[in-house]
């Protein structure tokens, strides 16, 4: 993300100085965890749209022997949050995109439509192509910021307090 765009987003979410930043921002503990699904209430997508998104996102990042996929990570719920708090143009992009996917899938299957949408990923030309870019980006963002993505799939073991930094201890990396 370009820094100017980031600063615009920060401006839109800037807080009153009287409120604790932690209270305002860090209030959605566990939103990326399986147990959050039961309590989630869709804020923009219909149940039908969410069901389609959930399937598509699971195809993009599926469960495998190593780790759960996008469905278990509730990525469609995160998409719902982001789109519901976005502008009208974003909302229209998503609603139109899902509708297009559904319509195309009525003639084949969601899996085939996704494959078709992804075919021109390097050079998107149609509305379907462009929606795939949006969908994939959201799936990646949602999955790899979730508990499942960070801890189970990538097994990231940072963000902790180390008494020291050992650095490289491998002889094969010596120059």
């Amino acid at each position, binding site marked *: 993300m370009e820094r100017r765009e980031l600063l615009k987003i920060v401006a839109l979410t800037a807080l009153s100085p009287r409120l604790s930043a932690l209270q305002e921002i860090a209030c959605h503990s566990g939103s990326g965890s399986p147990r959050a699904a039961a309590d989630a209430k869709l804020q923009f997508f219909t149940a039908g749209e969410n069901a389609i998104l959930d399937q598509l996102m699971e195809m993009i990042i599926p469960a495998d022997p190593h780790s759960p996929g996008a469905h278990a990570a509730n990525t469609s719920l995160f998409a719902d949050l982001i789109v519901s708090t976005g502008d009208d143009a974003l909302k229209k992009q998503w609603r139109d995109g899902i509708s297009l996917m559904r319509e195309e899938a009525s003639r084949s299957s969601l899996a085939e439509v996704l494959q078709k949408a992804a075919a021109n990923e390097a050079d998107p030309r149609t509305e379907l192509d462009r929606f795939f870019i949006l969908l994939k980006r959201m799936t990646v963002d949602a999955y790899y910021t979730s508990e499942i993505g960070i801890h189970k799939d*990538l097994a990231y073991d940072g963000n902790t307090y180390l008494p020291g930094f050992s650095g490289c201890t491998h002889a094969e990396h010596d120059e």
Partner: protein
Amino acid sequence: MGKGPEAFDVCVVGSGAAGGVMAKELCEAGAKVVMLEAGHAVPHHEFLSHAWPYELRYRGLRGEKQVPFYQGDVARSIAYSDCDDVTADRVRVVGGRTLHWNAVTLRYAPQDFREWSVQGIEEDWPLTYSELEPYYDRIEQMIGVCGNDDGLDILPAGKHYLPPIPWRCSEHVLHRATNAMGIPLIAVRKAVLTRPFDNRPPCHYCGHCMDGCDVGSIFTTPDCMLPKARATGNFTLRENALAREILLDREGLATGVSFIDTQSRQEQQVKAAIVVVCCSTVESARLLLNSRSPQHPNGLANSNGVVGRYLHGHLGSSISIYLDEFQGRKPFNQDGATDHVYVPRYNQLFGKHDYAGGWGFQVNYSGYMFPFQAHLLPGYGAAFKETVRKMQPGFLSFGTFGKVTSGSENYITVDRSRPDANGIPIPVMRFRFSDNDRALWKAAKQSMTEVCSHMKGRVFESFGSGPRGFASHEVGTIRMGNDPRTSVLNGYCQAREVKNLFVTDGSCFTTSSEKNPTLTIMALSLRAADYITAQRKKGEL
């Protein structure tokens, strides 16, 4: 009859790297100092640096971790008119950008103060490296800098560094590449503690430097300078105090500062015998341009029209490579302290070029939590997911910080028809890169690609179609100089037209080298503080 404004010896406007040094030094020298800071303090326990993404409403994707540092409407209250791809990073919080930086601290080289004499471009500074060297020594020892004396003319060093940070595996691989090209790779110099120092603990290597250090291991003004200022009993901090204009007497001398209390939106004033402006490059120019009077109709100290002009900074591009030899490796904690190594300027080792200046590379200044390659790899499905995971341990990235030339055609002005939420006209930026900048950027890109060619891995470049600026290193809008026609300040950061007005943040830079400016800002501030103290003792100020 009501009480008049409170009176102080010095009013320091801004609490960042420059303001912190000024407040501490002047208080310790016996001056009564008031510091006006537009933002408010954020205590360590409110930093979100260690928050997991899934603990944040938007998973950090909307900049939530940095929100505490961009208070009020600061991010919205600027306009860009006729600009290339540049952004001014205007933080608003007690501590300024010292709460939101990677703490790389590099000395300028002797030649960096002599662009005209050495390269025939721009202008020389009104001071030399030799004159600033003692202040570099003092400030490094004051704040705690880790690193080495690498014996490089292009990057002078001090003699009292804390132990350097150990290198990551990927940085040793990078070293093979830089060795093959005959260019240096050194331990970075950073204001990050690698052992206890100054009653502050050493770094715990969480990789969240830019999100705010919640233990005080990175130099910040609130953790290092303000406690020392407070200890003298001479220091007063006014938070949520957005300076509106500098007040003058009939002789045209500064008498204090009018500010808006951003909580009550009421205007208040402080009186001071000396005013030191440390608001950062854009905001300092904004303050002077908004300080109009019959004696200074174009803004304070601006009869030559130079205030706001010569805006410049750093240009940048970045590249990442996922090293083959780490593919599929068991993940290990590489967070560290962001930059552990640095590639100092090296193009001068390879003869003359069709551009002036150079660049350095900062390395591994991003974290390891998010797999950026997932946004760059084509495809989807099981194979995509597996590839993303296996590539992650091999992440290595570096970015160019390149010299940008200063020119009067690039400037900050103010738009009086567009006030911010506090009724103060907003700054408007005009900036275009020069032909020299573009040629340098092109050469830097080629060099980055060449470095990667000496490593085995999948490369993703993020060059864009042109240079981007300013990497939060904007400088130059209230420049010091030898020529009164093209400068506002003398070599002590003193305004020529208003002898009790000083400006010591990045806006005072005559020119910029490729090196990060913060250490030089602090050294200049220290030198100006000594000068002010000496002048006060003589009764000149």
